[in-house]
């Protein structure tokens, strides 16, 4: 399991993020839904955006601190249009 703070720090270590929202889907601390907004997503398709998040969270995913991850990713412009 992992804490929201650890998720945010780990992401921010390799990805410029302007917003990260975490939701613990089961209360067990290992099934997470994340909303991530990053300027690095600008001009990229969702596949590429998700790949960037998966890459940034590679370690906690590999060692199973995160067992399941559901992602919603947005560039700042997309967040303006589709967010909230």
């Amino acid at each position, binding site marked *: 399991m992992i804490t929201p703070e650890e998720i945010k720090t780990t992401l921010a270590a390799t990805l410029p993020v302007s917003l990260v929202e975490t939701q613990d889907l089961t209360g067990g601390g290992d099934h997470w839904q994340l909303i991530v907004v990053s300027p690095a997503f600008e001009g990229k398709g*969702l*596949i590429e955006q*998700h*790949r960037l998040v*998966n890459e940034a969270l590679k370690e906690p995913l590999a060692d199973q601190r995160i067992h399941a991850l*559901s*992602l*919603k990713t947005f560039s700042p412009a997309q967040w303006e249009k*589709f967010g909230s």
Partner: protein
Amino acid sequence: MADEVLSKIDEKIKNNKVMLYMKGTPDFPQCGFSAHTVEILKAYNVPFATEDVLADPVVRDGIKRYSNWPTIPQVYIDGKFVGGCDIMHELHERGELEPLLKSAFGK
């Protein structure tokens, strides 16, 4: 030899406008994410082909290598990897799936 499976996958993806690799079948999905992905595709009334990765561990592993994507289901439209359940859901909600399908079937 191991990569015979990659050519087999490649062929299916090229021969079907919409190809879904899933767990189970559209009528009997074996995983909630696969079930949801089928529901989304059905909403557009377009034909789609599926393959059950639970029936063949070589395909199950192969499709992950093919796309370099760790999870199943995986949807391919017009020969291109589009995403799994999350991305399909998101594209559906954003209204971006319909133009993708239209352009695939318009050809």
